[in-house]
């Protein structure tokens, strides 16, 4: 508008100037209406707008506080979870160690038992074999002895002539008489 006024002044044209500037009455009524509108708005609209804005701000602040509280809770939960995880890892490690120790102990026990059992079986088998060997030796000795005696008996039976028979009878009678 300043440019237009300046252009109008520079051209000296009063009509243009009148076209651009409002008339006084219009200016007064405009000012009055604006004032009335401003007063009405300050009285009726601005308080509501302020209230709405205040509520909105409070709501946002509340949500922010809620979000902060949730964040803190999440942080706390995370901390607790990490702590639990650490504990769980420690517990798992301890259980694993215990299981390894128990397994090793059990393995040693099984190996020791197996070795002991194997030793016992070997000892028993050795004893059985020794007993069987002794039994067979005894049996063989008996059989050889019986065979030898049978053979000796047959030889004696065959070799005994009449004179020897008579001699044996005479010897029997002599010994019987000597013992009386």
């Amino acid at each position, binding site marked *: 508008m300043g440019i237009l006024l300046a252009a109008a002044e520079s051209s000296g044209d009063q009509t243009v100037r009148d076209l651009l500037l409002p008339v006084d009455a219009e200016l007064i009524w405009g000012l009055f209406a604006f004032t009335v509108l401003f007063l009405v708005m300050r009285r009726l609209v601005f308080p509501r707008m302020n209230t709405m804005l205040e509520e909105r701000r409070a709501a946002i602040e509340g949500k922010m506080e809620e979000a902060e509280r949730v964040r803190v809770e999440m942080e706390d939960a995370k901390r607790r979870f990490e702590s639990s995880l650490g504990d769980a890892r420690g517990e798992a490690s301890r259980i694993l160690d215990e299981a390894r120790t128990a397994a090793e102990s059990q393995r040693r026990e099984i190996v020791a038992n197996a070795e002991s059992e194997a030793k016992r079986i070997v000892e028993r088998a050795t004893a059985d074999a020794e007993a069987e060997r002794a039994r067979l030796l005894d049996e063989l000795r008996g059989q050889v002895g019986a065979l030898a005696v049978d053979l000796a008996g047959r030889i004696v039976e065959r070799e005994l002539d009449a004179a020897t*028979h008579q001699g044996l009878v005479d010897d029997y009678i002599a010994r019987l008489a000597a013992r009386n």
Partner: protein
Amino acid sequence: MSTAQAYATAVRAVAEAEDALDAVGTELGAIAQAVASDAELQRALSDRQLPVERRLRLLDGGVFATAHPATRAAVAMLVGAERIGLVDEVATALAEQAAAERDRSLAEVRVATPLTEAQAAELRTALERKVGTPLELRVVVDPSVVGGVRARIGDTVIDGSVARRIAQLRTRIGS
């Protein structure tokens, strides 16, 4: 009383009735030896498939053929009663009963070969001194004694046989 003793009592009654106790005793002893030394004869005499008469004919070749009728009757009784296996025990029991009747004990003497009369007399004297009672000898030739003498008087056995020595040797080697 054992079965053999019961049969011996029956045979003795018959023999005494016939007044032939000594003969029956001697003949029965000889038949017992013949049966005991011949397993085939013993088996045939015990064969129930054969009639008794046919079984008795198997004995005709030995003492039985010329034996006293009382001896033959005794053997026939044992064969008929399927007791011929007891003939040796019956002969011994008969000899024991005959000896007891004469107040003597029986000495059953088993030898591998027959004794001479002198040996039998010496043996009887030695045994009588040993047991302190008068004895009658029943000599049985038994090859199982191998050699020497095995004498039994009642429950007493005086064993000087080679068979006993072999048995002792077998026992010693076996243990």
